[in-house]
C-alpha cells in the first residue's frame, strides 16, 4: 500500500470577483521511502501542492475537492486541530528560505525542543538530547553549543541543516521539501542535497522534492511529476522523463537548458509565457505555446495516457512519437 495517495486534488483561490483554480485535479501516489520530484516553473502550482498536502494553504486558497490519503487515512478535510498530530510528526516540511524559516527571537534549542514536546511527552533535557543527536546526524559541528544560539548567528547553509534536523526529529514518514536549496549557493546546495538524499535513504523516509531545477530532480528522485498551469502534464520514472520526455512542454523545458545546445548557438526556446491562473485556456493549457498543437488540443482537455513508460497528458503524444521515429529512421 502506498504511503500517500492523492486523487483529483483541486485547490482554488477565492479572488476579488472570481474563483480561480490553482490545482486542477491532480493525482499521484508515493510509496514508503520513495523520493518524488515535482518540477515546474513558478506559478505551475508545485508549492501549492506541497502546502495542500500539509493542509496549510493560506487564505484565499482552499482545497475544493479531491482526496489526500496518508498512511491509510483521509486527511484532505481535517481541521487544523486534527492535522496537528500529523504535521511535523508524520509529515514534515522544509521551507525554501532558511533565513526566514526560523523564528529570530527563539534559540535553536527552544525551537527544536518545542517540536518534540508538541508531539511527545518528553522532559526538556531528554528533548535536548534528541536534538543534539539529530544535529549531529546533519553534520553540525559542536551541536551542544548550537542549542543556545539564535538563528541570526548561523549561516544560511547551517540553518538549512538545522531545518532538516528538525524535520527528522520525530522520524516522519514523509518530508516535503519546497525548493530547499534555491536560496543557497551552488556548493552549499550540493552539500545539502547530498545530505537530504543520504538521510532519506538511510531512514526510509519518503521525500517530495519541489523544485524548478531539472538537474536537482535528476540527481535526487526516483519519480517525477511535471506540472504546468496547475496540472500534472507528465509523470513517471525520473530517468525516463529526463532521457525521453514525452510531453512537448517537458521536451521544451529540457531542450531550453544551455547545456543542451552548443556554446554560442541559439538556445531552443519555448515561445510565450505560462498562462496566469485567471486565463488558463480551454483544452490543453500548453496549446498556445506548443508547436505541435492542432485544433483538438485547443478544444478539449487531454486525458492522461500511458506512453513509453510515462503518464502523459497530451493528445498528440502518439503522433509526435511516430514523427520522431520517422525522423530518426530517415
Amino acid at each position, binding site marked *: 500500500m502506498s504511503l500517500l495517495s492523492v486523487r483529483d486534488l483541486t485547490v482554488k483561490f477565492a479572488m*476579488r470577483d472570481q474563483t480561480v483554480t490553482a490545482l486542477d485535479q491532480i493525482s499521484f501516489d508515493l510509496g514508503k521511502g520513495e523520493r518524488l520530484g515535482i518540477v515546474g516553473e513558478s506559478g505551475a502550482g508545485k508549492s501549492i501542492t506541497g502546502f495542500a498536502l500539509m493542509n496549510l494553504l493560506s487564505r484565499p486558497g482552499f482545497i475544493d475537492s479531491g482526496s489526500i490519503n496518508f498512511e491509510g487515512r483521509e486527511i484532505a478535510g481535517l481541521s487544523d486541530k486534527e492535522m496537528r498530530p500529523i504535521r511535523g510528526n508524520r509529515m514534515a516540511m522544509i521551507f525554501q528560505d532558511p533565513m526566514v524559516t526560523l523564528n529570530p527571537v527563539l534559540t535553536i534549542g527552544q525551537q527544536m525542543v518545542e517540536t518534540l514536546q508538541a508531539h511527545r511527552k518528553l522532559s526538556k533535557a531528554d528533548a535536548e538530547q534528541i536534538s543534539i543527536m539529530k544535529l549531529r546526524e546533519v553534520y553540525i559541528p559542536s551541536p551542544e553549543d548550537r542549542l543556545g544560539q539564535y538563528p541570526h548567528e548561523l549561516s544560511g547553509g547551517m540553518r538549512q541543516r538545522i531545518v532538516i534536523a528538525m524535520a527528522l526529529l520525530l522520524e516522519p514518514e514523509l518530508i516535503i521539501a519546497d525548493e530547499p536549496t534555491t536560496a543557497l549557493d551552488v556548493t552549499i546546495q550540493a552539500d545539502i542535497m547530498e545530505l537530504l538524499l543520504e538521510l532519506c535513504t538511510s531512514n526510509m523516509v519518503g521525500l517530495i522534492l519541489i523544485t524548478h531545477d531539472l538537474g536537482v530532480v535528476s540527481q535526487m528522485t526516483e519519480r517525477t511529476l511535471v506540472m504546468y498551469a496547475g496540472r500534472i502534464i507528465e509523470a513517471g520514472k525520473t530517468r525516463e522523463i529526463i532521457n525521453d520526455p514525452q510531453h512537448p512542454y517537458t521536451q521544451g523545458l529540457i531542450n531550453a537548458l544551455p547545456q543542451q545546445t552548443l556554446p554560442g548557438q541559439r538556445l531552443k526556446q519555448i515561445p*510565450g*509565457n505560462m*498562462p*496566469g491562473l*485567471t*486565463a488558463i*485556456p480551454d483544452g490543453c493549457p500548453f496549446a*498556445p505555446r506548443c508547436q505541435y498543437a492542432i485544433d483538438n488540443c485547443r478544444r478539449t482537455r487531454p486525458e492522461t495516457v500511458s506512453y513509453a513508460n510515462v503518464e502523459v497528458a497530451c493528445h498528440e503524444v502518439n503522433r509526435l512519437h511516430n514523427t520522431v521515429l520517422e525522423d530518426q529512421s530517415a
Partner: protein
Amino acid sequence: MSTVATNPEPSRFERIWNSNMAYSFRRNPVAVVSLAIFLAIAIMSLLAPVIAPFDPYDPAQIDIMNSEYPPVWVDGSEPEFILGTDDQGRDLWSTILYGTRLSLLIGLCAVGLQAFLGISIGLIAGYIGGRLDSLLMRLADIQLSFSTLMVAIIFLAVTQAMFGSETFNQYAVFFLIAVIGVAEWPQYARTVRATVLAEKKKEYVDSARVLGFGPLRIMVRHILPNSLSPIFVISTVQVANAIISEASLSFLGLGMPPSQPSLGSLISSGFDYIFSGSWWITAIPGVVLVVLVLVINLLGDWMRDVLNPKLYKG
C-alpha cells in the same frame, strides 16, 4: 501575455474606475459614507458666510441677553437659534459653521506645511544618506520623542508671553499653522525617508543612474511618484491629528481666542458652563469635532488597507 492581449485599450476613466482602489472604495460602505460626511462638512463650512444665519464675528449681531439658550428641542429654547446660543449669546449653529471652517483651514494648511517640509527633508535624507541623513533623523527622533503637543504648547506659550495676548490673538491662525506644521515634520520625513530608502535599493533607480540622469530628476521623476501611497495614507491621519492638536491647543487657551472661536475654543468656553447644565455649548461642537476627525480617520484606515504601504514603525 494572454491577459494583456485579449481586452482592448481601456480609457483613462475605465482604468480609474476599475482600479483596485476605486473597486474597494465602491465595495466599502464605511468609506463611502465617511467621504460623503466629510464632503458635507467641508462644503457647509466653506459656505459658512452664505449658510449661517448670523455672523459670529460681528459684535453688532451678538446680544449678551441671548446667552445660554438651549437647542430648539429642549425646553426654554428660542426658535431663532436652532442649536441654542453660547455664553456670549452667539448663535451656536453659525459659530460652529465658522469654527469648523477655521479648524479645517488650520488642519489642512498645517498638514500642507508638514508635507512640504517633511517630504523635502525625507527625500534629501533618504537619497543623499550618510552624515546628513543620520543628523536629520536623529533630530526627527528627538523632536518626535518630545511629541508635537509638547513642542506646540511650549512654543505657543512662549510666543503668547512674548507678544502679549492681544497681538497673539490677532495672528493666532498663523501661529497655529506654523507650529503644528513645523512640529510634525518628522512624521512625514521618516515615512518618506523609509520609502525612499526602500525605493532607492530597487533597480529602476540604479537603471536611471546608469542612464546618466541627475539626482534631482531621479528624486522627483522616479522615486517620489513611487513613494506616494505612504504619503497619502499618512496625510489623512495627519489632517485628523492636526485638527485634534489645534482643538487641544485652543482648549488650553493657547490657540484661537474666544472672539474668533475654532471648535476647540468653543468647547473650552462651554466647559465652564457644563456644571450649570448648559451642556450644549460643549457637546454640540464636541460632536462635530469628533465626527469630522472620525470620518477622516476612517478614510485613512480604508486607504491604509487598500494601499498597504510599509509605513515607518517606531
